[in-house]
């Protein structure tokens, strides 16, 4: 049916200039050649041609009323000579509000619309030119930044390699030091053993008993007193507390002093069980023991020296490894195909909005500081979250400071093309959900350049 009518249109009335049909674009004129009847564009119905634009909706698709507000699904074409043509919903025809800059939508209303297309066109052209300039400039800057990015990337890679080399060297050194410390410890142990080897078990025990007794007997009078117990003995579970006199007396078997014999049969047992009381600072006790032998002293010093050296190397090794992992982490972030976003890392950008100062540190975090001075995290680097077409158009920062009603603060950063890199706006449309507009040359895309302005001139 549709084909049939189309043929009729072409052959019968095809090139006769029809009366102007309001609200259609030139590409639709072929559907509105004046004749006896009109076929709704969706093919659903044929109506007399007088019913086109007669302010009553006959076609389901609204095609019979392109120039009136009669059809709920209709649309009206603003020619907008001098500016951009566009469609508006039919409901905006004759509603008293000027929508088309050529005023064509308000042909039967009280609205006094001016034709503003020429001015708008001028503005649009100026705007587009400005955009173009920005884009050109931006793309040049972007090229530089890409080059810098590549260099930076290589630099970081080199840095990583250097660090890894340092780490390897340190690893070797570390093993050497471990070996040396082990050796020193072994030597010290041997010396200690040799020192004790000559004595029988009993004597060694006695020696140990007597040396412990000597240790407790601070004034060397051959007898341990309450004060001496208080000074040297402490509770296993509460080392800070000084024993009371009663407790000390109890340890001394109920008396106020104790000789070596009594010590060996009473307090020594308690001390060796070690579940209630112990001697304070056992190290110095041991030191006291070995302190008597010069060989042992030398071995001990050597072991300590090697331990200190090993610790230093271990620390250095850890530091380098941390640096390596930080750098690796940094390098695993997607900085765009040409590493063009890499330069943003380690930078921060600030913007003051009302009483708040916002700071965006790309690939790191977003913060907000009030004029009162408290700083709040609005999110840590999450991911790129742009469209599938251009995933680098948006960043998300998540898991900021927790929110009052659950959840945590987050920020979505939209990247737009500009000649400078700067934070342009910050909004909080819903509580704890921030959106930022971040301008940078690296967001400039060559495709933008194809978008121009078409006017029906």
């Amino acid at each position, binding site marked *: 049916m549709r084909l049939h009518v189309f043929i009729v249109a072409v052959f019968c009335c095809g090139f006769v200039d029809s009366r102007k049909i309001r609200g259609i674009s030139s590409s639709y004129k072929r559907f509105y050649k004046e004749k006896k009847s009109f076929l709704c564009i969706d093919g659903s119905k044929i109506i007399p041609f007088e019913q086109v634009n007669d302010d*009553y909706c*006959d076609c389901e698709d609204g095609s019979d009323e392109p120039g009136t507000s009669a059809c*709920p699904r209709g649309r009206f074409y603003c020619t907008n000579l001098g500016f951009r043509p566009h469609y508006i919903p039919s*409901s905006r025809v004759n509603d008293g509000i000027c929508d088309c800059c050529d005023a064509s939508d308000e042909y039967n209303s009280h609205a006094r619309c001016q034709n503003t297309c020429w001015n708008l066109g001028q503005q649009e052209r100026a705007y587009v030119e400005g955009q173009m300039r920005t884009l050109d400039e931006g793309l040049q800057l972007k090229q530089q930044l890409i080059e810098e990015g590549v260099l930076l990337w290589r630099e970081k890679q080199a840095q990583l390699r250097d660090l890894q080399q340092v780490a390897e060297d340190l690893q070797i050194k570390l093993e050497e030091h471990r070996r040396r410390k082990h050796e020193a410890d072994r030597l010290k142990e041997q010396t200690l053993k040799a020192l004790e080897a000559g004595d029988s078990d009993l004597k060694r025990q006695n020696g140990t008993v007597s040396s412990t007794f000597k240790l407790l007997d601070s004034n060397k009078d051959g007898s341990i007193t309450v004060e001496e117990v208080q000074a040297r003995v402490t509770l296993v579970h509460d080392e800070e507390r000084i024993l009371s006199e009663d407790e000390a007396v109890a340890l001394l078997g109920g008396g106020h002093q104790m000789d070596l014999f009594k010590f060996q049969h009473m307090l020594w047992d308690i001390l060796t069980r070690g579940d209630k009381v112990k001697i304070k600072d056992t190290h110095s006790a041991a030191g006291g023991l070995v302190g008597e032998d010069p060989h042992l002293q030398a071995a001990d010093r050597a072991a300590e020296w090697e331990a200190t050296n090993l610790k230093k190397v271990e620390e250095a090794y850890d530091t380098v490894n941390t640096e390596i992992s930080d750098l690796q982490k940094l390098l695993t972030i997607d900085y765009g195909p040409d590493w063009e976003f890499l330069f943003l890392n380690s930078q921060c950008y600030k913007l003051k909005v009302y009483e708040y100062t916002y700071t965006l540190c790309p690939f790191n975090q977003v913060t907000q500081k009030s004029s009162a001075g408290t700083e709040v995290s609005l999110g840590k680097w999450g991911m790129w979250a742009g469209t599938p077409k251009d995933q680098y158009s948006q960043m998300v920062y998540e898991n900021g400071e927790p*929110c009052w009603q659950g959840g945590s603060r987050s920020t979505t950063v939209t990247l737009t093309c500009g000649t400078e890199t700067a934070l342009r706006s910050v909004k909080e449309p819903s509580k704890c959900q921030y959106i930022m507009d971040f301008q940078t040359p690296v967001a400039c895309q060559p495709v933008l350049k194809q978008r121009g302005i078409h006017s029906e001139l």
Partner: protein
Amino acid sequence: MATVLVLWLAVCLSGTLAVDKGNFKTCDQSAFCKRQRALKPGESPYRALLETMELTKTRLTLQLTNDNNKVRLLLELYRLQGNMTRVKINELKPLKPRYEVPDVLIREPPTEPLSLLSQDENGVVLSLGVESQRVIVSARPFRLDIMEGREVLMSLNSRGLLAFEHLRIVYIALNLCQCSLFACQKAKEEEEEKEEEGMWEETFKSHSDGKPNGPSAISLDFSWPGVEHVYGIPEHADTLRLKTTDNGDPYRLYNLDVFQYELYNPMALYGAVPVMLAHSAQRTTGIFWLNAAETWVDISSNTAGKTVFGKMLDYVQGSSEIPQTDVRWISESGIIDVFIMLGPTPKDIFSQYASLTGTQSFPPLAALAYHQCRWNYNDQEDVQTVDAGFDEHDIPYDFIWLDIEHTDGKRYFTWDQHKFATPKDMLQGLMDKKRKMVAIVDPHIKVDNGGDYEGWCWPGSAGYPDFTRADMRDWWASQFAYDQYEGSMENLYTWNDMNEPSVFNGPEVTMHKDAVHGEWEHRDVHNMYGFYVQMATAEGLIQRSGGVERPFVLTRAFFAGSQRYGAVWTGDNAAEWDHLKISIPMCLSLGLVGISFCGADVGGFFKTPSTELLVRWYQTGAYQPFFRAHAHLDTPRREPWLFGPENTALIREAVRQRYTLLPYWYQQFYNTHHTGEPVMRPLWVEYPQDPATFVWFDVHTFQKHNGAQNLYIPVTMSSIPVFQRGGSIIPRKLRVRRSSTCMEHDPYTLHVALNLQRAAVGELYIDDGHTFNYDKKEFIYRRLTFANNILSSVNLAPDAQFSTRSWIERIVILGASKPSKVTLKTPDGQESQVEFDFDASMSVLTLRKPGMNAGLDWTIALQ
């Protein structure tokens, strides 16, 4: 809005979202309620002293005495025009005057003659004038029975629960008594009456209520023989039909800012209308208890708890009592002043109540359209972006709202100088699209330099103006003048929130009862505070336009008579399915007591709705009188286009349906403005008898359903089951535009749904949509009738003058048969043929473009 303080507490204490019941009193925690509820029926100490009776043409007076304490009361009884009876009871000689509610009645109700029919030592029988209606006054104990023929319509004090706590002097000790001898004597006598805790002082959660006047409660019981269904006494988040209260607290009327209110319980909410309707198939009657103090209402029924089978058994065996509902009203102070509305139909009740307290104000048409609100639209740019979003997604809206954050530090009537630096530019931008704005103005004033009553609210420390004073209300109204309210324009309207009043650090989050308003205590006037705030605000909006423009004021707190000043909403609800459901009975209840302009926050205020819930809420809200989406500050954005194109389309469709029906909504509001009939009605109001003979048409598919059957209507996400009753004619405007004002001159489509007699009637009301000029008879009011295959439009207001550019573009007749010819006749005598289209499968006849002006007489004949 919610209370920050309580919010904070609730989060800290429970972490869950639910009302903290401990913040609000139970009857047991309210000393007077506990005291009164303890009284047992059948022990009334009151006796009518018939020898004191005086009967003038319009008034009966009679003294009552309390045999226990000898205190005398004065009973006044009036027969009022329109089938009402007024009963007033006060102390005969109160120590000082007791509060009588002013400003709620629109005038002193006109009376009708009373006459004495008979009298003996047991009582008096009076004629109420019409239809053999009588009042029987029984002397011992005192009771009143209102009869019609042999039928008792209502009894007062039949259970003997009348109580009247007389004012007394505080008795400390005889030797300290520095009063006159007489008063001392009196005080001593009173001491013999039981002194109970809470009579002279009461403490609730660290708040002390010093009661300088002592106990002053009043109480009275009412019985309705033959009645099983009672309705009204909003505001409660409960079923439409009121429940019996035997096993719990009474329904409470005490305007409160209840944080995260719970459903299905009798707790008080933001507003109070002390009006109850009693309905049976034979008759509808009502009680209006004119008292603004804290009030509790107990309901019991002799059939409650009986199963259907039990009732059936009663019927079959002819046994048992007639069903009866007993109610009992208890108020903390004031007097007993009751209007007994005797119906007999629901519509009679509405007109009776309207004759006392006035009708719903006639809103500007735009206020019936869609409102977009959120706490908060952050700044002017935000407003502009949301406004543009509606155009981009082709969704109409009329009002965008600003909550408290738009102000300069919560100082109302001001603007945040950074975020709303140029409010007039913003308002002009909206005006250019024929749209409007509402800004919040709460009734507390930030304390910058100290004030009278101070409490905490949004601004921190705040003063609460005494709105009960006429001069204060005048001052408040003057603040809305364009030169006072800087940055305001004629498309800026007002929202009164927090006017219970909400006082964050007050007892039950409101004002102390012993705060004073001139010579009265807050106790006496509490439930009227919000009423006065809205009154003063509406007056301000009227005055700023020199009395030309209709105001639009939304209020959260309300009282009897609040309908005269604007709209109410159901307060801070939540994004839950149950809250969507409760919005229906809550608004129905309000409509029954005169407040038709009611809505609930679409989407729910607290919490975040699922997309499905949000869509369903739009679909429901589109068919409720006040249609506004609103959201809490802490919830994510929910403008209609944020949920994917499919859901945007569903919401768009719901909002568009609202707009197509605006002519009908407007006509309904015109109707309620004149009759008091609710716009949103329970079916029993419309069809008190048999609804079985009706047919109903699905408004979307035109599918016809016969009455008297149960139907399961399958739905999808896009369905809104709406039906037009056969016999009705509904005007629509199908050209949905950006805002209702843009649709002003658009043509009408009439939907004529035929009943089984192939007839239908409807109305069409048109005026300028925003001024009071309708009072000057500038409107079009027409009756549309379809009968005998002729559809005609006749003028219902020949003395009114108005012209419209709107015409009739389409007439859709549902349930029609195919005509051979359709002829239009206009008053100039011209006849013309009208094209038509007939859909035989659905029996739908569509007349194409008859084209006559909507304001003229015309007839269309189907042949």
